């Protein structure tokens, strides 16, 4: 299941959905919005998506991960619109029989999401400036969300 939403992510509900009777492992990654960026204080964030393509690329990633690691289920949810500091901007949960597959698939999904899914973040700084976050290509090896 993939979804792009402008409301808060219901983490507990998603966890219940993803956990299957045959699962022995559920791995959850939650990306939250930081209050700082490159040493400057961030007071708010806003995400925009190229909706049809973002959904399509998320679905492709979901199918890839399911096929590669034999996952029982996948949930990927990304926020758009205003997101307050400290809130979840992205949620990824995967279930599998054993933990190795779940860990690997989770890492694959967030890394790929940050590379290919057409979603953009705008940061609102304390000094009143607003900037698009455009460093994504240089952050390939970082694990931060």
């Amino acid at each position: 299941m993939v979804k792009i939403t402008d409301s808060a992510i219901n983490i507990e509900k998603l966890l219940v959905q993803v956990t299957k009777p045959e699962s022995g492992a559920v791995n959850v990654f939650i990306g939250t919005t930081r209050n700082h960026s490159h040493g400057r204080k961030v007071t708010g964030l806003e995400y925009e998506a190229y909706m049809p393509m973002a959904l399509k690329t998320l679905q492709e990633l979901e199918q890839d991960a399911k096929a590669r690691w034999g996952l029982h289920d996948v949930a990927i949810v990304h926020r758009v619109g205003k997101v307050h500091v400290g809130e979840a901007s992205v949620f990824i949960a995967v279930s599998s029989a054993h933990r190795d597959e779940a860990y690997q698939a989770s890492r694959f999904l967030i890394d790929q999401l940050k590379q290919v899914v057409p979603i953009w973040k705008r940061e609102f700084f304390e000094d009143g400036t607003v900037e698009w976050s455009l460093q994504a290509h240089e952050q390939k090896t970082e694990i931060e969300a």
Partner: protein
Amino acid sequence: MKVRVKLFSIAKDLAGVDETVVEIPSGSSAETVLDQLIARNPRFVDWKPSLRLAVNQEYVRNGHLLSENDEVAVIPPVSGG
């Protein structure tokens, strides 16, 4: 021929609109759309190397040939997560 162009993030700010239509010769490549945008606002030149293009919601190479009524999207570095 005419193609629809969708603009996001910094590309939207540079163009001043989130959607536009460009008139280009039949058989033009996707890159032609970027050149049209540069003609409208020379500041696009600085961003050209980091802009990716998608046609009908699929990433394409700059040399991809366009068809009438294609939806071309200008994709600046993505920053989801």
